[in-house]
């Protein structure tokens, strides 16, 4: 009996070892595997692309492995890159724009460029492409559009005596004034942000056409517009007109869905969160960002991702053809992006695909405003600014500095300390 048991155990072990050593993905020449992470956002977009491509390639199959978050994909790349064994990777990955430059530099074997793919690159916003272009070589097929919007509750503004037009093209000082007025009259704050990953300084700088970086170094100290921006945020936080939440869920669930704020400024992927409150239908409208000196509208982008072919893809031609035909502005682009928008709220940064009727439809939730074509239009204006692999490191330390300044610390000292720490992590 014991022997039988031992034998069974051994057999089980051998089988499980064999199962582990097998390749994770089937390869039949018509299937591409892809990693993506958001079942409500980018996965419907991929499904739309699959359906579009099947019209010309009936046997084509896209095998989507849903990850729990973007960091899973980053860690899969780190693992493959560090071990020098790319065989664990799928054919295509969706990857965050802010990280791609450093990952291509650190793990060159993990990636294959899109050179030779039939994509008209002029059909995309230059800012979006600036992330996925490395040394002049295109690596990524853009999926979503991170263009920042400033959404306001028009009913709350009206109650305080303002319209959406009063909020467009204004200075931040004027914005602070209006915000105090709105707060006094209605009790609503006019902006909120997840302060544990505070994107406000970055977006506000980009709206000025400026960067927190200069020649690959952090440029916080002595950067006058940057200091003014920090002062705006600190002032708003002190007035109670800018709510700085301590976590992402508090930002979404309490400040936005919990009806504490009458204004939301973020990448347009925040729209589904705004729309979670059915009662507010028809009460929102979107516009551009304020700027420091006014006289112009501010355009920025925040977040977003693109599709990349990995070093493990054996069928590169098929992958390129698929990406070019769908997300790359080919014949299937209109269908892909229309369905991606319908099913996932993914907004294209492909200018020609943004001309479709689906994009021109007025959205009832936003009072009939054709927000999607507005956003595609805004996306074309987003200025290209200096980026850095340490984007998120800078975000952390600037966020810390803001917290400390609000609690009474000196602005110059705090910015110096943030700059020192970012330089330390880079060095």
């Amino acid at each position, binding site marked *: 009996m014991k022997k039988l048991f031992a034998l069974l155990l051994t057999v089980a072990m051998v089988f499980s070892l064999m199962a582990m050593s097998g390749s994770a993905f089937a390869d039949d020449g018509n299937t591409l595997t892809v990693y993506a992470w958001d079942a409500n956002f980018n996965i419907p977009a991929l499904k739309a692309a699959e359906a579009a491509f099947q019209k010309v390639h009936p046997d084509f199959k896209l095998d989507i492995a849903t990850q729990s978050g973007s*960091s899973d994909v*980053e*860690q899969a790349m*780190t693992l493959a*890159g*560090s071990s*020098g064994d790319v065989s664990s990777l799928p054919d295509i990955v969706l990857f965050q724009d802010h*990280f791609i430059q*450093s990952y291509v*530099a*650190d*793990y060159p*074997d993990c990636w294959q460029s899109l050179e030779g793919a039939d994509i008209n690159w002029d059909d995309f916003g230059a800012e979006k492409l600036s992330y996925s272009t490395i040394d002049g070589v295109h690596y990524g097929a853009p999926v979503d559009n991170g263009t920042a919007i400033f959404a306001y509750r028009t009913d709350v503004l009206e109650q305080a005596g303002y319209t959406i037009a009063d909020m467009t093209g204004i200075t931040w000082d004027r914005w602070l004034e209006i915000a105090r007025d709105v707060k006094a009259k209605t009790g609503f704050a006019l902006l909120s942000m997840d*302060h*544990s990953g505070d994107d406000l300084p970055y977006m506000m700088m980009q709206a000025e056409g400026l960067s927190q970086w200069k020649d690959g170094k952090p440029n916080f100290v002595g950067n006058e517009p940057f200091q003014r921006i920090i002062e705006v945020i600190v002032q708003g936080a002190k007035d109670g007109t800018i*709510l*700085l*939440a*301590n*976590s992402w*869920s*508090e930002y979404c669930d*309490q400040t936005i869905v*919990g009806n*504490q704020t009458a204004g939301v400024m973020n990448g347009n992927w925040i729209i589904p969160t705004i729309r979670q409150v059915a009662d507010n239908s028809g009460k929102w409208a979107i516009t551009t960002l304020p700027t420091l000196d006014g006289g112009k509208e501010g355009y920025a982008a925040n977040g977003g991702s693109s599709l990349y072919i990995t070093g493990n893809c054996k069928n590169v031609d098929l992958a390129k053809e698929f990406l070019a035909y769908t997300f790359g502005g080919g014949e299937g682009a209109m269908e892909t992006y229309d369905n991606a928008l319908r099913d996932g709220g993914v907004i294209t940064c492909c200018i020609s695909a943004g001309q479709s009727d689906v994009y021109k439809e007025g959205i009832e939730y936003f009072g009939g405003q054709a927000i999607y074509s507005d956003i595609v239009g805004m996306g074309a204006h987003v200025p290209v600014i200096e980026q850095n*692999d*340490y*984007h*998120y*490191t800078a975000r*952390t330390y600037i*966020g*810390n*500095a803001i*917290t*400390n300044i609000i*609690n009474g610390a000196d602005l110059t000292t705090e910015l110096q*300390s943030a700059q*020192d*720490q970012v330089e*330390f*992590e880079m060095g």
Partner: protein
Amino acid sequence: MEKKTNRWGWAFLIVASAMIMIFSFYPMFSALIMSFKTGSSANMKWATPWYNNYLRMFKDKTFIMALKNTFLYLIIQVPVMLVLAILLAQLLNNPNLKCRGLFRTCIFLPCAISLVSYSLIFRTLFYDTGMINTILMKLGIIHENIKWLGQTGTARAVIITALIWRWTGYNMVFYLAGLQNLDYQVYEAAQIDGANGWKTFWHITVPQLRPVIIMTFIMSINGTLQLYDESVNLTNGGPAGTTMTMSHHIYNTAFQGKANFGYAAALSFVVFILVAILAAINLKVGDTRD
């Protein structure tokens, strides 16, 4: 016969030892080597000087903050938790207490909850407009929402409270087990000699529980130095990094943004050395054998 048994014994031992070597000691050794290296993980080079990662720590303000935070948690949370645990154990060990099983289960129950879940629940409770603030407002104790997680002091207090809630029952179980091994006659003798409850507790219970107390101390110190889930999920290190723990910083260094495995490995070894030192002190202090 004996020879044959020995041979089999060695055979089994070799398999187990080989596995420990391959899956435990070899990675530890590799990590040590890695802690002297720098650069992206695909292309690591020796640091110059080779101990540079260890020097780097002294200039790393985030690490120093994390070190301070971790020790603050350690100094406050571990004694409070263990004293509470031993008192609860003493109470629940009373054979005359009704519904002992129910109370024991209730106090142990938090340990059945995953670290991530309970951290998230605590975070929700302490939102600016969360349940705690709502209750305090309704009771008229406060008139303006307290920013529990937005201020250093309160955020640390929330983490410590959460830790005590989560781990007291766990330690209590060890004390209960220890108490049940004590001979009841000793207590009867003490009673006859006129010792009151407090004296009995300090002079009979505590000395006899010493091995268990030392064990829980070492486990708690070890656990606190490796504190991670609460820092990540409850406060995300905030506000301004003042609640971040060492393990959280190590994770951020290794896996967030640009990976720096060499430095992260060096940081891990510092935690390892700290645990070893504290455990050694603990054993030395607790050892009464001459």
